[in-house]
Structure formats: C-alpha cells, structure tokens
C-alpha cells in the first residue's frame, strides 16, 4: 500500500499545479492570479521533491515564492487599474489562442509518454553533491557571469524607476 504514496502525491500535485496555472490565466482579478501563481510554484517545488531534487526544490521556493511573488505583488499594488470584470469574455483573440495552443499541447503531452525510464535509475541520494560539484567545477565561469547579470539587473531596475526630479 505504501507503494501508492508516490503516484498519489504526483496526482495531487499535478491537479494542483495545472488547476492553479489555469486559474492564473482565467482569473478576473489580478490579485487572485498572483496568489494562484505562488501556489503553482509551490506545487512545482513539490514535484521537484518527488523527483528527489531537494536542493532545486528549496531554491524554487526561496526564489520564486519568496522573492518573485513579492515583486509581482509590488507590481500589482503599484499599477492599480479600474477592474474590468469578465474582460476575458470579450477578448477576441482567445479563439485563435485556443486553436494554436490546444492541439500542440495535446500532441506534446501524448508523445511525452514515449520517453522511457532509464534501465538503471540513479540512487535516491539527493542532488546536493552532484549539483554543487557541477556548478562550482565545470560551470564556475557561468556562475560568475550570472552574478554579473544579477548586478546589472539590480542597477538597471533601480535606474529605471528613479524619478527624474531628483
């Protein structure tokens, strides 16, 4: 019976993330979209844990839920607009979008099952040590460039929102 815990958890997380993702797109109010987006991030982090990638799951929650969601909430707070209920109802592009997205989605989802599990699965030791040795070993240069990127983004964001009269 305990073999069914993993598929059951996967089913719950799948339903959670897809429903929340659909909620982000379809919700009328932006604040609901933002909270549902945070919920999607949490579900995807749960899936990372299910895959055995605990470090990446912790980073996902730390960065996405802890920082990016707060940033987006700031964006929602500081750009208040008059609420337009049922804006999606009058959106004329939604049929083209559905036509483009739904067939490709179904096709990709069905062919995804053609990926076979490897014959020998890696041991469930977690991904901390391989991840650390890879990042600081093979990809040390990319790591440094990423820190420069963050610095540039920080400076750029501050410069962009400075008011001109100062």
């Amino acid at each position, binding site marked *: 019976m305990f073999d069914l815990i993993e598929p059951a958890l996967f089913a719950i997380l799948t339903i959670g993330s897809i429903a929340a993702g659909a909620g982000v797109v379809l919700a009328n109010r932006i604040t609901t979209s933002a909270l549902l987006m945070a919920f999607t991030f949490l579900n995807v982090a749960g899936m990372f844990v299910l895959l055995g990638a605990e*470090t990446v799951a912790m980073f996902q929650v730390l960065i996405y839920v802890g920082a990016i969601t707060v940033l987006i*909430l700031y964006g929602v*707070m500081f750009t208040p607009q008059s609420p337009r209920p049922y804006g999606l109802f009058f959106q004329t592009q939604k049929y083209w979008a559905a036509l483009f997205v739904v067939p490709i989605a179904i096709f990709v989802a069905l062919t995804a099952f053609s990926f076979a599990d490897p014959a020998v699965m890696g041991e469930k030791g977690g991904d901390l040590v391989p991840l650390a040795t890879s990042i600081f070993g093979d990809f040390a240069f990319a790591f440094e460039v990423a820190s420069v990127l963050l610095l540039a983004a920080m400076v750029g964001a501050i410069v962009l929102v400075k008011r001109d009269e100062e």
Partner: protein
Amino acid sequence: MPVGPFGLDPAIWAPLRLVIAVLLVIGLVFNGALAQIYLERKIQAIIQDRVGPLHTGPWGLLQTFADAIKLLGKEDIRARLTDKWFFLAAPSIVFSPMVASYVVIPFAPGIVGVDLSVGLLYLTTLGSMTVLGIVIAGWASNNKYSLIGGLRSAGQLISYEVPQILSLITVVLVVGTLSMVGIAESQPGWQMHVFVLPLAFVTYFIAGLAETNRNPFDLPEAESELVAGFLTEYSGMRWAIFFLAEYGEITVVSAIVTTLWFGAWHGPFVEVFPLLGVLWFTLKAYFFVLVFMWIRATLPRLRIDQLMSLCWKVLIPLTLANILITSILLLAFPTTLVPVAIANWILLAGFVLALPYFQRRRLATLRERLRTATA
C-alpha cells in the same frame, strides 16, 4: 516501513506517528508562546525595575491564560478591505512556515522530525516565505499606514536574509554538511563552534533579531510607530496568530543558533541518557530567547534608514569578508581549525571596537553640521 511500539502494524503506526508529531509540534509552539509571553513581561519588568504581572495566579503565572481568553473574546472587526481573502489568509501564510521549521530541528540524538540533507537550506527557505504574508497583510488592510508598515517590514526582512544566509554559510564551510543533525553531531563535548566562528554567531544573531521583527528592529510593528504598522487592522485572534508566529520564529532562531554554534544537545551525561539531550537543547535555546528579551528591554529602536544602512553597509561586507577569510584559511590549513578561529576572533574584536570609533566620527560630523547650520 517502521513497526510501531508494542509491535503495532506499520499501516497504523505511520499515520499515527504523523498525527502525534503534529500534535507535539503544535503543543510545543503554543506552550512555548505562553511561556515566552509570561517571561517577556516578567523580564522586561525586572529590568525596568518594576514587578510585572502579579495578581493573576501565583506570581502572575496565569496572566497569559487571561490574555488568551481576552483575545478570543474580542470582536472581529472587519473594515472595508482591499481584498477579503488576502486579509484572512495573511496570518496563516506567516504562521505556517514557522510551524514547518520544527521538522528539521534536532532536539536529541535520534529525536528529529526528518534528517533532511538540506536542513539548513530548508530553514532559510521557510524564513523567506513570511515576507509574502506580511506584504499581503499590509496591502489587504486598505490603510495607508498598514501599507507603508508592510512594505517597510518586507524590505527589512528581505535585506536581512542576506547576512543571515551568509553567516550560515560560514558554519557550513567549517562543518561540510547542510544537514542539521550532521552539524549538531560535529560538536562533541566542549568543541562548540562558537569558539571557532564567533563573528558568524554575532552577525547571525543580529540578522535574526531583524528577521523576527524584534527590538531594536521592530519599527514595522511597534505600537508607537505608524499605529502598529501592518498589524493595525488585525484584532483579537488574528493578531494573536501573528504574535504566536513571532514568538515561534524567535524560538526557531534560538534553536538554529543553539544547533549551529553551541552544540545542540551536547551536555553532561547525554551519551548515557540520549533523552537528556532534550533538556540541554531546551535550556540552551531558552537562554537565547531570554537574550532576545533582554535586548528588547534594553536597546532603543533603530530608524528605518539606520536599519537598512546597518544591513547593507556593515553586515553584508562583514559577512562576505568572513566567508572569504574563512575559506582561504580552510584551504591553506586543511587539517586544523585554529587559524580560522584566530582570524574570526580578530575580526570580531575589530567589529566591536571599530563601531564606537565610527560613531564618534559621525557624531563629530553631525555636531559640525549643526553648528554651521545654526550659526
């Protein structure tokens, strides 16, 4: 799957164990909060030369129960809110990560919820989720002061996460594992990490004070500032949940300090009776809780710009320098920890002694400015 005591069937024992663990954690959190509220009032009173709660029960011990009953009975005032669901959800978003933190704390050898290989990362992750709850609380209250208080608090929390994590990295460099149980086990007897890495302890403690919105960093929630900041519109039991979350977070920060720098459960006779480790752990953790309260009763509050400049201009360069020096020394002398200890104590002495010097210089500058302004 583990077989339960008295040979209980694993299918029953596993969920039963989960239920018992959840009840234990909730009991720990609530009773700890009850004890801490009483301790706080008594300790503040003693330091301020007063007596504190005296009449409800012997030595005022039942004061907290009286407070809790009063809070439960308060009217649930609901102003016209920006967003009702955000307002209702915010206390839970602040409270849940704190409760979830108790899973990885090692109370005694063998008594730990889950020995996560990334336990320390898990604790910092949960610490960063409380920011979301506070931003939501400040914004959903439809109140200018709450919004400003919430944004200030979020800025403070996000800023002080950086020195917090950087201090933790120093300990991980020395120990070599992120697992809390591993860190606790690497300090047998009197070889506590505080003798090797005192600067990281001090910076983590300061950052922990700021992370829990505690004096001297409690600008966002103090009663005399901004009409209690983001907590303004919360009354009765909802405020109590924020309050409980704060006291629980103080306990978690104290527990982390105990585990990382003071040898979590190690003490006399703990090899003979493993369960005695719980007693030593609790004593050490509550000592730091008392230090939190002592600081609250003693130090004045920092302004928001002083707070931010302390973080970005003092703590972050200090912790970064600490990591740099520690890693260089660890690579240069891989067998011994003595150079690391010496360097850290020198840095700590420099930090403590340099502050009065810079303060005196700043005071002289300000006096000069005042003199030229009024002349």
